[in-house]
């Protein structure tokens, strides 16, 4: 989806400051949000790709307002509510009660976890298909436009690069995130020249991006 998460190449974000003394979790709730975010996938019967899509589906304000762990927390809530593990509004009502307000909490709802086939743990899969491409092949990133989840960054759409390496096959996030099957595929590292992506005045650089076979077409 063309969302706030697809940040490659955007302008306007300012500069980057490194804090050499940054702790792993700056606030106590950062750690709690991280741990519950990680567990929310299992608790909601979903998966890592659905979690990433949950992050993308947050309103851009919610995506940014409380930083990385803020979106993990909001995403955990999204997945748990989608799956009926928690009722809509349950977290907000509980939070208001914790702050001393007197709020009626919503009744539990029926669980609605997704039902789908899993091909094993993790994301890597063994497949028998011959790879369609080999290192050295010229390939074009398809002009894909989906409103759902994808791991093809928008900034390479329609651009041409060179296959640099074949990586282990992996399940396809585009369908797995929506519980439509794993569709494991070959994955390639494709190299693009910065001028191909950003124009002739681009800073000299090469970009290497990992792309699923169905994202690519021969040139």
């Amino acid at each position: 989806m063309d969302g706030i998460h697809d940040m490659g190449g955007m302008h306007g974000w300012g500069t980057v400051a490194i804090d050499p003394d940054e702790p792993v979790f700056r606030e106590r709730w950062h750690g709690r949000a991280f741990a519950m975010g990680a567990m929310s996938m299992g608790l909601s019967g979903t998966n890592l790709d659905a979690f990433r899509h949950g992050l993308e589906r947050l309103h851009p304000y919610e995506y940014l307002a409380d930083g990385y762990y803020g979106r993990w927390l909001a995403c955990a809530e999204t997945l748990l509510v989608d799956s009926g593990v928690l009722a809509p509004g349950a977290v907000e009502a509980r939070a208001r009660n914790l702050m001393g307000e007197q709020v009626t909490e919503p009744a539990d709802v029926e669980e609605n976890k997704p039902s789908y086939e899993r091909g094993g743990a993790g994301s890597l899969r063994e497949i028998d298909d011959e790879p369609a491409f080999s290192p050295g092949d010229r390939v074009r990133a398809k002009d894909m436009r989906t409103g759902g989840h994808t791991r093809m960054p928008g900034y390479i759409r329609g651009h041409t690069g060179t296959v640099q390496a074949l990586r282990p096959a992996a399940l396809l996030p585009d369908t797995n995130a929506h519980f439509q099957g794993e569709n494991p595929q070959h994955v390639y590292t494709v190299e693009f020249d910065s001028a191909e992506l950003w124009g002739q005045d681009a800073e000299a650089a090469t970009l290497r991006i990992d792309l699923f076979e169905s994202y690519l077409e021969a040139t």
Partner: protein
Amino acid sequence: MADHSNTTDRLSPAVRAEALESLLTERGLVKSEVLDGFINRMVNDVGPMNGAKVVAKAWTDPDYRAQLLADGTGAIKELGFAGPQGEHIVVVENSDDVHNVVVCTLCSCYPWPVLGLPPEWYKDPAYRSRMVREPRTLLSEMGLDLDDDVEVRVWDSSAENRYLVLPQRPDGTADLSEEDLAALVTRDAMVGVAKVSAG
């Protein structure tokens, strides 16, 4: 559209986290001690000290270096480092001619077993947006100036492969032990936004 910018009545994430934890624990879905254990592992057991051991061994053991570059996941597992976000780790080597740097433009993918959780700057929209478009300028702003004749190679971790940069061993370290070398290796050098200095 909902007005998400109305902050007067917006709940803090701290209280939302507390609320979520209380809802999950009272349903028996989560135990607070399990969350504690998970957090402790991320704070104490994984982090750049793991990656630094990998780099120092590669600097002192040519066979290990070759193995690491050929099969990062396997060579790293030999030192005891594996786990979530480490299903397939690829090690990319810096040289006089090529400088590698890693980003995740779509989220904040990062090789947890060897570097731990990503620092704030790695998750910053400025880093995610600019590293693929103006890497030399951004690296310079972060304190790393590269010669024009060095190829800047940016790795956008868009699938499940995770990348670790093998930095160049600094001059003047020929007499150092593997342990002393590991102490020089920084997280920032293993992501590719800094070089390792001899101290």
